[in-house]
């Protein structure tokens, strides 16, 4: 496309030595300019994909993504005919309405694999809501808004996505089960399986597969008052306080899954009179972690806990019936084991070796 400057003669012979206001009202000029502006690109789709250019404003991009999704729905998605929406990096503003993925076998991925599908609405409702089961989502960043998923989505796979508080499985006051697969995802507080309130008591089950996921406080199976079970597989996950199988009120929190290299703050891993019955490899918690005040019956390898961790000690009641190998407390001492409990080559808060049972 040629570029003309004021004072030059354009390709249709007009002298451009006039004012800009003259130009923008000059029909010949407008016609000339229109003839060199490329038309909107045609809808790009294949038998198994729909492409989103995202070359407009943020609201236009959102409309284009919605249109692509609507097109995908017409392409007969099925287990043997998955349709992938490939979205270009850009901002997508859905205003006050969520982009809802309710149809199975329609996936959404970013063109570059990064978190480059950015939902930038200032309205918390303008987020993504994945309500269907067999869906794959990769590369969506909704900022501080909640990244919404439904309950009981065992075939859901979410990768490299980010949300704010209340993401990846949250109910303010209802049961929830998070049993999908989450890889490289980040949420804020109250994320990855939470029922915040408990009237009546609620049941939170987090039995999915979580790899390299990060959340804030009160996450990975947290119930404000009810039953919270972290029974899934957690690898390289990191959270704040009150996380991984916590019922804050009644002590019905259970960490019964497999935890590898996971880190959490105080009052985590089946604390508050809960149960830590799973298997823990190289995990780290703050004070009152790993079944504090309740039952520490799991198997622990090279884990680190703070004061009053691993069942209890220092004033709280609880039991240590699990097997604790090469573990360390940063403060306090190990309580006396009971039942089949064992400690081997462990160090207490003053680096005194502890071997029991």
């Amino acid at each position, binding site marked *: 496309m040629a570029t003309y400057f004021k004072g030059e003669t354009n390709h249709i012979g007009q002298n451009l030595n006039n004012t800009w206001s003259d130009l923008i009202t000059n029909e010949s000029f407008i016609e000339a300019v229109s003839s060199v502006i490329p038309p909107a690109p045609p809808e790009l789709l294949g038998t198994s994909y729909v492409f989103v250019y995202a070359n407009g404003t943020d609201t236009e991009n959102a409309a284009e993504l919605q249109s692509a999704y609507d097109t995908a729905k017409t392409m007969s998605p099925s287990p043997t005919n998955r349709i992938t929406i490939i979205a270009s990096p850009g901002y997508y503003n859905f205003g006050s309405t969520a982009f809802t993925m309710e149809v199975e076998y329609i996936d959404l991925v970013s063109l570059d694999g990064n978190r480059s599908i950015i939902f930038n609405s200032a309205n918390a409702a303008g987020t993504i809501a994945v309500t269907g089961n067999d869906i794959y989502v990769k590369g969506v960043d909704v900022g501080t808004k909640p990244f919404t998923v439904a309950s*009981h989505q*065992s075939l859901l796979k979410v990768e490299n996505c980010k949300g704010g508080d209340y993401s990846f499985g949250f109910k303010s006051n209802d*049961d929830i*089960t998070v*049993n999908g697969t989450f890889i490289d995802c980040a949420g804020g507080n109250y994320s990855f399986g939470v029922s915040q309130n408990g*009237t*009546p*008591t*609620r*049941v939170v*089950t987090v*039995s999915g597969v979580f790899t390299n996921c990060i959340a804030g406080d009160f996450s990975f199976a947290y119930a404000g*008052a*009810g*039953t919270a*079970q972290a*029974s*899934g*597989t957690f690898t390289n996950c990191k959270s704040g306080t009150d996380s991984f199988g916590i019922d804050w*009120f*009644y002590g*019905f929190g*259970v960490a*019964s*899954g*497999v935890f590898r290299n996971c880190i959490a703050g105080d009052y985590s891993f089946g604390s508050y009179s809960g149960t830590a*019955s*799973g*298997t823990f490899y190289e995990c780290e918690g703050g004070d009152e972690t790993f079944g504090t005040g309740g039952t520490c019956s799991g*198997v622990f390898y090279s884990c680190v806990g703070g004061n009053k961790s691993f069942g209890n000690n220092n004033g709280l009641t609880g039991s240590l019936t699990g097997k604790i190998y090469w573990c360390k407390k940063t403060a306090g001492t190990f309580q006396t084991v009971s039942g089949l409990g064992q400690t081997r080559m462990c160090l207490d808060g003053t680096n005194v070796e502890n071997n029991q049972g």
Partner: protein
Amino acid sequence: MKQYQLTTQGVWTEIKQVELTEEQKTLLMSKEDSDRQAKESLIETIKSQRTSEVDASKSNELISLYDSKKPELKESDSYELISADVFENFTGIINCRVNGEHKQIRF
């Protein structure tokens, strides 16, 4: 969706929601020393109401499902159940240890 749990071999329980009255909610939130005993008593009541044993028919269904899903064992294998959690649509997860190694079976 109803949820059933097995932590002790052969004893399936249903995890239930416990309805609370406004009065009970107020008591649970109370930080008054004078309410402490009543509050603890209420929590114990809620604990006892949180689970209930399933009836024989449902128990048999769950036992059959569990037996069909749990790991196959050799005679010399040691088996330790951690928990089996099953929803009413018969999906769920078993956490267990076979010869000390943690196994998870999702179905």
